[in-house]
């Protein structure tokens, strides 16, 4: 996998290291050469500045000790008089033979020497220095010139790391922004002054793609909504005609066929209604919640289904689980219409699949400060392997009886998702039946507007 960051860091740090190495090499050598020249100059200076009272062997011997100071750098001094007699040498024994005048490097025994010979009017002075001493000193000098470079490298690397991290920051920000987007958010990315020029084409291309995607998905939603809408009127007309015909008795049959046709027609009408609801829920942008009383909502939904439940002899009721009490309005921030559709779908489902004489409870709950509700039935429940899939659109488990469209739970799940609620299904542990719980409501703190009757 290629990484701009790794590439930048690799090349910058390696390049800097290579450049620094070459510079260090150059500096080191130059410094050494300069030091060498300096030592040659020192030799010459020593030779030239030797006092002339070293002319005679006697004084030379007497004052020899006084010159020890000069030999700090282990400089060897030898002086010959015009007759060719060695009149002075700074060591106990003469080390080097007399060489011609001028500067040169010679090899004597184990060591190398740098020698400078100077012919003066009355004597010949030869000054020499072991090469190893010169080398050691030159090396020290050269190394001393390198430390600023050594200090510069870590500082530069730290700077490179910082600059690269800063430079790539907008890319990280952009990917975080995209990663945390909600599933159905196709709004274009905001292009403001903080987006670097280099990223602009990318963001623009992305926005273009998002816009095209948005148009396409909008078109699909519109199509479903339109199709469902268009289907509604002919279906309603068909139902009316069928009812009229069966009343008038113009349709002759044994009664069963008409009943079956009527049942199937009802199913199609319901499916179309559900499709329309789903398309509407998909199309609506997530809106800010208003204050809704969950108790009022529950009362409304239970009332609405009271007659239907009665028909199936199902005991439908509203319950309050501690710490929620009957007086508790359970005000939450939510979209009241969507929430009503959600709860109605859940109750409709529960009544549909609960056999005659069963029981369906809408239970208001509060756990850890978060309000919620549950729809609990004592029907057959859902096999565990189907629990995940029943929220998928048009999925109907193999066990399913009844006249469901396969959209009820999908609609409920969609609404819950849109309102950032948690919808979960579980089979009752201690008894038969299914519990669908919706939780995660934010309790409304403000005043609740008066409930319209």
């Amino acid at each position, binding site marked *: 996998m290629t990484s701009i960051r790794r590439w930048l860091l690799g090349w910058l740090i390696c390049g800097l290291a290579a450049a620094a190495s070459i510079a260090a090499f150059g500096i080191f050598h130059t410094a050494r050469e300069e030091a060498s020249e300096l030592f040659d100059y020192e030799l010459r200076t020593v030779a030239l500045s030797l006092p002339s009272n070293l002319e005679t062997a006697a004084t030379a011997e007497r004052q020899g000790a006084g010159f020890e100071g000069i030999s700090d750098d282990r400089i060897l001094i030898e002086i010959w008089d015009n007759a060719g007699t060695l009149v002075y040498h700074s060591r106990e024994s003469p080390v080097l033979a007399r060489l011609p005048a001028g500067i040169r490097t010679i090899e004597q025994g184990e060591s190398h020497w740098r020698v400078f010979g100077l012919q003066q009017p009355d004597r010949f002075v030869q000054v020499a220095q072991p090469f190893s001493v010169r080398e050691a000193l030159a090396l020290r000098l050269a190394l001393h010139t390198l430390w600023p470079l050594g200090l510069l490298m870590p500082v530069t690397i730290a700077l490179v790391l910082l600059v690269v991290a800063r430079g790539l920051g907008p890319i990280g920000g952009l990917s975080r922004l995209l990663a945390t987007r909600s599933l159905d958010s196709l709004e274009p990315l905001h292009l403001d002054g903080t987006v670097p020029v280099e990223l602009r084409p990318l963001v623009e291309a992305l926005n273009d793609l998002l816009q095209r995607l948005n148009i396409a998905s909008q078109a699909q939603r519109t199509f479903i909504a339109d199709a469902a809408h268009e289907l509604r009127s002919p279906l309603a007309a068909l139902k009316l005609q069928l009812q009229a015909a069966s009343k008038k008795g113009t349709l002759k049959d044994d009664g069963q066929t008409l009943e079956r046709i009527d049942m199937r027609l009802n199913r199609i009408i319901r499916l179309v209604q559900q499709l329309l609801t789903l398309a509407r829920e998909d199309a609506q942008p997530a809106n800010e919640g208003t204050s809704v009383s969950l108790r009022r909502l*529950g*009362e409304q939904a*239970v*009332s609405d289904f*009271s007659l239907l439940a009665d028909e199936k002899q199902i005991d439908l*009721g509203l*319950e309050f689980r501690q710490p929620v009490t*009957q007086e508790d309005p359970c005000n939450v921030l939510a979209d009241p219409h969507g929430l009503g559709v959600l709860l109605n779908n859940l109750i409709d489902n529960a009544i549909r699949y609960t056999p005659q004489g069963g029981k369906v409870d809408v239970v208001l709950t509060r756990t850890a400060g978060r309000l919620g509700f549950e729809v609990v039935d004592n029907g057959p429940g859902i096999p565990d392997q189907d629990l995940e899939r029943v929220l998928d659109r048009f999925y109907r488990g193999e066990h399913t009886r009844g006249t469901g469209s396969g959209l009820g739970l999908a609609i409920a799940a969609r609404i819950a998702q849109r309102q950032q609620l948690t919808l979960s299904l579980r089979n009752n542990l201690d008894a038969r039946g299914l519990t669908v719980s919706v939780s995660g409501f934010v309790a409304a703190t403000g005043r609740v507007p008066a409930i319209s009757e």
Partner: protein
Amino acid sequence: MTLDPAAHEVTKDGVPMALVPREFALLQALIEEPARVFTRSELEDKLYGWGEEVGSNTIEVHVHSLRRKIGAEQIVTVRGVGYRLKRHE
């Protein structure tokens, strides 16, 4: 069973029934909207005027006495919500 709001009279199978005014008001509310479920607080509002003190189980008491007179099955309790009239086909 018929309810005549003008005459404040309820008859069952032609026999007039003796209802106290609040029982009559309760029955009238239920009959006027037979499919609707009334919550306790809604019934309290219908039976009592603004600012009148209402005991916590007053509605239950009225429903109970009304049921005794017109038949228990005529008024259906919707658990956790309130009351409605029994559905007549």
